[in-house]
């Protein structure tokens, strides 16, 4: 009862994508039980949650958490760890200058964390070297916004997805990546028969389920598509001339450039691999639908021409005056829960803070004065890919990685791994103990996890929400802002980092946003100065609000730019003159296929949290590659087998999924798998380290690759209650499931595991099991089960070849882990992989020669009114061979003949 009484309900925000759903968590601090439902009052989701969000309660288990600071493998006190970080950073700064150190942050950090990180690096250490995984995600949108609007402003909001009559979803599998927004569109569409949805994506994703038109565009050809649209709008006289003339600049040049690209539909069709008819349909729908929203995400951003793609989209919206209006405008769908917050504080190496810029006169001085520092960074630092190249080159000698996993997520990830291996000093602060990046850390700092952190996040539509702590910090975990400011103090900046509570950080952030923020001084979009003096109570009770939050808009503002006022010096929106250009690395004879990468419905980033929720691992349990049937045939791949993918930069293994949702020549792999779960499933190894020249965002959606069948000599799986020790098996994927883990195995070596090897490997995890096995060595079949008494602890099944042999059903074997112990019948059946349910209960065996059970005999006697054992023998063969059971049959006959006592 005490447990029940201890349950309280806390409103907070989801840990995952940029929709930033509000959730209500029912929390029992004693048991750490958390269950999650959608917050009906939150404007981002109105009570909806997706599969990931609703499983949040399953991800806060402490088993995978980093709970204490470590220097090397030695657990230390916080003071020692912080001293070590400060000392090494100081030494390196003193010896090699501030640009020899760097921070690499994350859209998972809260705004307060991010603010302190940025302030420490740019303001006091004095280097621009703080970049973030948002570089992989949103930086093309940021640059595109800045080029067009003068600031990184998202003009529209989620409601516009519902108000629109045409929603163009481009470069986004919104059904999986922003499921709640997708559900809002689906619901709006069913309420509005005029509403149309166009999905532009090389893949026929689940998002296409609501599409009236799917354009399977050739990877990277978006600028051609939207330049074509701009031409179409010009030629069909769909231009909002009044808006263009009054509020924009560069229209004529933009049109000229797009015409130079080839205005004819046929040319665009050939460039984009689309049919003229589909193009014409899309163009006419766009032209004729005033309420049009173009929602875009990584398919646009992750490109060597990502910024141009963003501006190509914005050009069309500026040309039609459809921006910042209810139901019309461009909408960048942010990937991470606080990527927007990171952009606000200046978490990217290329900006300063609070939407102040290195390249705008006066901004450096402004920030320097506000922070009261003399060591402000002179200019931009290194963006992510360059940063890790600089680490590899030895120019950056100390890096502090926070809440992200670049060894998995960056392009050319094997090089990143090597760079960190040779980096003199690597600090990683994270809530997870074992990640591919944490494995390379010299100092490991335990950060609070989602359920413990408290601070602000900003979602896709500029809505600031309070993410609240549900539970006390686990172990010695600390907030990231605390860790950073304690290091800042140790670096000699006591005054500037003397924060005692996150609200103090937030107030300072809000104050900076309003600092000299007027038309006369330096006008910026981002202004939350109304919160500069927010009380702790108001901070704690903060209701989700879209910025700006200032004197003019104390309750926030839904849309920007409907007044035609932009933040460029001229206050006019800027058209960009754009020319389509293909992805940097073309396919070639050696690497003939285009690799696309992306998210899955039920996983998040590098799976450190989602993989803890068994039900999220069932949808797609293994790294896979989607291949069109034509390509599968050409490269000798069969569905469900394994393939080796290789590029100039690395290789990975993946399970082949043959599907015509993929275009011929294009293949797709999910971005999530790490070495913690898969021996060779890191897609980052393959991805080319090509970046957009403006945004420095990598071209993760286009890498030339080759694919071949993985020549497995044997394959199999292990189901185990406990995590197994590492093995030398070539292909090994771990899938956490409910109550057990599943390992998928394969190897190219002809040495099939034998029973002794299997026992030895499994015994490293389970020292005292009793074993059961089936061995058919000539056919390469081995099945081994280990028990503690009658409790199944692990089961291994091995079959020869890549896919030729039949392995038992994993589902049936999995179901046995739910049982506290197994009956003898179940145990004997287990390795067959077939459920015992179908086995008729024939009773205790009577006739051993013909395996006739007592129940069978009784039934034969009663059904046929038999009276002698000879008759019984004729009926069911019992007793007709050796006759040993004849006495028993006689006894059974006698027992039936006797009238039963009443």
């Amino acid at each position, binding site marked *: 009862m005490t447990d029940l009484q201890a349950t309280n309900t806390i409103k907070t925000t989801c840990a995952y994508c940029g929709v930033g759903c509000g959730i209500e968590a029912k929390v029992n601090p004693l048991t750490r039980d958390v269950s999650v439902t959608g917050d009906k009052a939150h404007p981002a989701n109105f009570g909806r949650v997706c599969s990931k969000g609703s499983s949040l309660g399953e991800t806060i288990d402490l088993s995978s958490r980093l709970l204490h600071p470590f220097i090397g493998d030695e657990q230390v006190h916080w003071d020692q760890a912080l001293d070590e970080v400060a000392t090494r950073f100081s030494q390196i700064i003193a010896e090699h200058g501030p640009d020899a150190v760097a921070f690499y942050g994350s859209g998972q950090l809260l705004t307060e964390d991010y603010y302190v990180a940025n302030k420490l690096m740019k303001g006091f250490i004095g280097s621009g070297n703080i970049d973030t995984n948002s570089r992989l995600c949103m930086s093309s949108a940021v640059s595109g916004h800045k080029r067009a609007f003068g600031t990184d402003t998202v003009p529209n909001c989620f409601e516009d997805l519902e108000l629109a009559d045409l929603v163009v979803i481009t470069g986004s599998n919104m059904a999986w990546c922003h499921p709640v927004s997708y559900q809002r569109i689906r619901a709006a569409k069913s309420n509005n028969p005029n509403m149309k949805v166009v999905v532009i994506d090389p893949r026929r994703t689940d998002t296409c389920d609501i599409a009236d038109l799917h354009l399977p565009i050739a990877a990277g050809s978006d600028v051609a598509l939207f330049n074509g649209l701009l031409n179409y709008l010009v030629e069909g006289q769909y231009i909002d001339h009044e808006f263009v003339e009054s509020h924009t600049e560069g229209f004529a040049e933009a049109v000229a450039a797009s015409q130079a690209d080839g205005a004819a539909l046929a040319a665009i069709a050939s460039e984009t691999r689309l049919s003229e008819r589909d193009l014409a349909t899309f163009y006419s729908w766009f032209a004729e639908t005033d309420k049009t929203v173009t929602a875009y995400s990584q398919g646009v951003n992750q490109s060597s021409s990502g910024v141009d793609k963003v501006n190509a989209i914005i050009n069309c919206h500026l040309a039609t005056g459809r921006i910042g209006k209810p139901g019309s405008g461009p909408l960048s769908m942010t990937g991470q829960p606080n990527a927007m917050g990171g952009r606000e504080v200046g978490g990217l190496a290329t900006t300063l803070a609070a939407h102040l810029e290195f390249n705008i006169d006066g901004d450096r001085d402004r920030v320097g004065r506000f922070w009261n520092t003399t060591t402000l960074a002179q200019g931009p630092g290194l963006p992510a890919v360059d940063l890790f190249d600089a680490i590899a080159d030895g120019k950056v000698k100390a890096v502090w990685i926070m809440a992200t996993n670049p060894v998995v997520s960056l392009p050319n990830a094997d090089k990143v791994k090597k760079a960190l291996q040779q980096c003199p000093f690597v600090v990683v602060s994270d809530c997870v103990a074992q990640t591919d990046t944490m494995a390379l850390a010299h100092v490991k700092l335990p950060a609070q996890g989602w359920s413990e952190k408290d601070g602000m996040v900003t979602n896709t539509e500029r809505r600031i929400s309070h993410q609240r702590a549900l539970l006390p910090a686990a172990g010695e975990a600390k907030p990231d802002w605390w860790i950073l400011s304690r290091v800042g103090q140790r670096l000699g900046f006591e005054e500037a980092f003397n924060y005692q509570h996150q609200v103090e950080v937030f107030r300072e952030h809000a104050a900076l946003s309003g600092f000299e923020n007027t038309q006369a001084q330096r006008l910026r979009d981002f202004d939350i100065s109304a919160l500069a003096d927010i009380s702790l109570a108001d901070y704690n009770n903060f209701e989700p609000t879209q910025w700006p939050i200032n004197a003019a808009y104390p309750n926030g503002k839904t849309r920007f730019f409907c007044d035609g006022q932009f933040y460029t010096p001229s206050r006019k929106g800027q058209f960009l003159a754009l020319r389509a250009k293909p992805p940097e690395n073309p396919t070639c004879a050696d690497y003939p296929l285009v690799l696309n990468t992306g998210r899955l419905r039920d996983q998040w980033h590098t799976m450190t949290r989602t993989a803890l929720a068994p039900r999220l691992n069932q949808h797609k349990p293994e790294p896979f590659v989607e291949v069109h049937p034509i390509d599968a045939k050409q490269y000798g791949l069969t*569905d469900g087998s394994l393939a080796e993918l290789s590029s100039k930069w690395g290789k990975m293994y993946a399970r082949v999924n043959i599907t015509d949702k993929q275009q011929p020549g294009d293949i797709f792999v999910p971005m999530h798998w790490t070495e913690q779960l898969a021996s060779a499933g890191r897609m980052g190894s393959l991805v080319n380290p090509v970046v957009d020249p403006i945004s420095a965002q990598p071209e993760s959606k286009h890498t030339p690759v080759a694919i071949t069948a993985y020549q497995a000599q044997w394959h199999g799986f292990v189901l185990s209650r406990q995590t197994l020790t590492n093995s030398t098996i070539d292909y090994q994927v771990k899938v956490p499931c409910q109550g057990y883990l599943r390992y998928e195995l394969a190897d190219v070596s002809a040495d099939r595991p034998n029973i002794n090897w299997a026992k030895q490997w499994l015994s490293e995890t389970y020292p005292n099991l009793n074993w059961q096995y*089936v*061995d058919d060595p000539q056919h390469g079949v081995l099945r081994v089960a280990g028990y503690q008494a009658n409790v199944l602890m692990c089961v291994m099944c091995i079959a020869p070849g890549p896919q030729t042999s039949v392995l038992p059903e994993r589902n049936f074997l999995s179901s046995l882990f739910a049982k506290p112990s197994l009956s003898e019948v179940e145990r*004997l059946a287990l390795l067959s992989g077939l459920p015992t349910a179908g086995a008729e209960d024939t009773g205790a065996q009577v006739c*051993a020669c013909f395996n006739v059970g007592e129940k069978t005999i009784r039934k034969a006697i009663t059904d046929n009114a038999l009276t002698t054992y000879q008759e019984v023998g004729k009926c069911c063969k019992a007793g007709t061979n050796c006759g*040993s059971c004849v006495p028993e049959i006689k006894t059974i006959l006698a027992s039936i003949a006797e009238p039963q006592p009443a």
Partner: protein
Amino acid sequence: MRKERLVVIGNGMAGMKAVEELLEAKPDYYDITIFGAEPYGNYNRIMLSPVLCGEKTIDEIMINDRQWYKDNHITLHAGPDKQVVSINRRRRLVESRDGTSARYDRLLIATGSKPFIIPFPGHKLDGVIAFRDIFDVNTMLSYAASKQHAVVLGGGLLGLEAANGLRQQGMDVTVVHNCATLLNRQLDSTAADLLQTEFESRGIQFKMAAETKELIGDKSGHVTQVTFADGSELPCDLFVMAVGVKPNFELAQQAGLHCERGIVVNDTLQTFDPSIYAVGECVQHRGQTFGLVAPVFEQAKVCANHLSGHGVAEYKMLPTATKLKVSGINMFSVGDFNGDAGCELIEFHDQQLNVYKRLVLRDNTLVGAVLYGDTKDGSWYQSLLESQQNLASIRSMLIFGQHYADVFAQEMTDSPMPEVA
């Protein structure tokens, strides 16, 4: 019209099975006379072990009592005096020790086998017996009531059953076996080890790979000790020899029938004298002699088929399955359980349940099977072995038994593998 006269020498399982089959096929064809040296009706000899254990009574293992003979109008001459001592083939007349005689038109010899007695020094001492009939069982039971030390020579089926029975009756029992593994003609070493461990847990001791040297007796001529070639010795009040049987064919030989290691019969169980048939452990068929019930019953069926004038059946030697009649121990063996270089093995072993299965295949047909602990699929394996069907399609399920193979085969039929695009 006078009925044909059938005389049967031997009132054991083989002879009586033939008579039963004959009565079934042609009830009134013969006047039947049966001679038996044991003073009973017909009993199930292979059930002597449960009698020794006290699990069954003599009455319970009787197949046909004297009333049955009367009911079927069979003349039964049973008892030591009724042992047939001569066959006069010219006169078609048999005669027993007490002079009882009977004429025949057809004669069936089913004299069975005699236990093999190794002539060690001392093998004729009191307390040295075989394990063959009710008399032997009664002897063992009386020893168990008053004596302590039993030594059973022979780690085969009969020896283990005797040892188990004597142990059940409270004696200290040691099994002496000349090989390193028990049941070495039926089991591979893994199964044999499991079996030995099980017997040891029941308190039976083993002296393996042992060569018996001598039986030593006391002044009254009763065995007291066994000595071995390695110099060791065991106290012994009862010495049971269970080292096999030899066909009992002296009578036939005396009658001039062709005998080698047994009475030589053809595929219809006919001897070299067309009016004389022979079945059971006394015969030699295509060079083989017999010691297990299944082939003997098969012979009886074929023989009855010919005696009844149908004359179409042929006896075909098939691999014979063996089982151990010891409660709580399930063991089954059929065919070639070792296999040769061209063979493939499938094994199942459950350490805790003490279940072990070993299948030997050649070109996806079954050539041998050993089951220990879980023998319910023994007859299925035997039928697969006999039919020599190709098992490729169910090979993955074979070791799990008939039910799983059937379910699997059904699933394969219901949902054929999808065609590869």
